[in-house]
């Protein structure tokens, strides 16, 4: 695709989309967002990249094969679920750690639930890209 305008626009938008997707991922537990939405948005960034600059560039930018990202995401989500076993809890029982807990605020949460959501993000991200890239390369 030899549109200068689109290519230049993509330079900015792709990063913006990925950044924005991470924002949606992180805040998803409390406001609209989460792994699915984040992953979808993140993938659109690279979809745009592929449309504007071709899949070869997009793959180079991504460095890792999207299928591997997706499968790794599945693995992370699964490990987040299995992690509960170390505490004698059932599969997918959320494990929470609050940093800087104070009387009136729980502090910064780190949880298996977040890791699960990250897994979801990666799965959606990687899966969509592997389909779109492969499809793009067919035409």
């Amino acid at each position: 695709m030899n549109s200068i305008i689109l290519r230049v626009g993509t330079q900015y938008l792709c990063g913006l989309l990925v950044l924005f997707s991470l924002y949606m991922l992180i805040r998803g537990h409390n406001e609209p967002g989460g792994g699915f939405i984040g992953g979808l948005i993140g993938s659109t960034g690279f979809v745009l990249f592929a449309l504007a600059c071709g899949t070869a560039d997009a793959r180079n930018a991504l460095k890792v094969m999207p299928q591997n990202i997706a499968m790794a995401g599945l693995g992370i989500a699964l490990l987040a679920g299995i992690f509960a076993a170390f505490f004698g809890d059932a599969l997918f029982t959320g494990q929470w750690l609050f940093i800087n807990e104070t009387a009136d605020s729980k502090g910064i949460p780190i949880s298996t639930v977040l890791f699960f959501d990250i897994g979801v993000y990666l799965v959606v991200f990687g899966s969509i890209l592997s389909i779109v890239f492969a499809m793009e390369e067919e035409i």
Partner: protein
Amino acid sequence: MTWTLATPLVLPFLTAVLAFLARYGAAGRWFSVAGNAVLLAASILLMVRVLDQGVIAAQMGGWSAPFGITLVADYLSAVMVVITAITALAVSVYALTDIDARKERLGYHALFNILIGGVVGAFLTGDLFNLYVWFEVMLISSFGLLILGGNKDQIDGGIKYVTLNLISTILFLSGIGLLYGMTGTLNMADIARTLDTVENQGLVTVVAMMFMVAFGVKAAVFPLFFWLPAAYHTPAFSVSAVFAGLLTKVGVYALIRMFTLVFDGDVAFTHQILLWVAGLTMVTGVLGAAAQNDMRKILSFHIVSQIGYMIMGLALLTPLAVAGAVFYLVHHIVVKANLFLIAGVAERTAGSTNLDRIGGLYKSAPLLAILFFIPAFSLAGFPPLSGFWAKYVLVAAAIEDQGWIIAAVALLVGLLTIFSMTKIWAEAFWKPHPEGADPALSQLTPQARRHLLIPIAGLAAMTLVIGFSPDPFVTFAKDAAAQLLDPTAYITTVLGGKA
């Protein structure tokens, strides 16, 4: 306890991830074998627990039923998981030779193990929406496995398979929505409990029929089975083996589960329809097989026919009949998966599965002949092989229930089954090979022989064990049927004593 139930579900996914990330080397396929071996161990452990304690349940995420998702295993679930693990292990060994490196690089092992994960999930879940999710997992991985290879017939068969299954999926999903709209819950035990209080019981029957159609497509019953004969003969042999063995049976399982636990309020209507469906499925399937001339196509149509037997057990809904359905399920998975595996070896040695183009296996591959003979004649219902007992229990149940017509149909279809099995036997094994020398197993490398024949022999041995020593299996099936027909224990266990 909770991990007893969760482990068999988790393992295939773990295996899939590892096998996928290692797909460029030999490690991937061995991950698959090892993972399935561990799965078998875990499922046996589950079975031991279930035999010890009856129904067991675990609340995922620690959220109590009906709020979270419950995994639950009664006899039926447990035995289905065990048999799944056995099939999976057998097929994963077979796949060591059957699946080439290109398919491995495209993710065969991941697809396969996630398929197994979906199957296990479907058997273990106590939550309707979760069942839908596992059905989807199964469905989509079966799509992938089906078309892996990309031959023209695979694509064509794949289109039929995909389109018709998608319709079923949508119907299933809609049914869940409607059921939720009536009961406000997704936990199957909870639905079963609250559905009786719904005022418009006619509506419950309508939704029941929706589920019947949705699962009917999955189970490949008349008149919804088209996708199966259109597709099952096209993929790699290890794939069609696992499809033939497991996939439709999940549909049957779901029918049994739903129409014993949940939709038991209008039996006179629903189960009468099921009985008709059963009879027509048996007959059309077996006739379809009689019209085929390809080993895998014959076997595919027979799947349809035999689904009819299982549905017949459910439809009659007597303890003996349901026990028959359970027994038939178990027997059929072992036998049918094996027959497809054997078809694969036949193709490798004789060059085709088209009966016109092959022959001579009896003379020069006697081991294969024996290994085929056992499941084939088991399928045809000859004693003392497993298929005889399966058929016997069902026919006995029908006669006991004075279902003369269905009993007659079941027997007649058995006869026609003999017809097809002997057709394969006569054409592929007895008849001399139409061109050139008779095929022999020695054409395969020793390694390939090991990979291909060990699983076949193992499954054949199971057929023999069930056949010669059916009592524990029948006893088990009867106990399973008793649990199914009186779901009180199931409901109580799932809901933690709040039945």
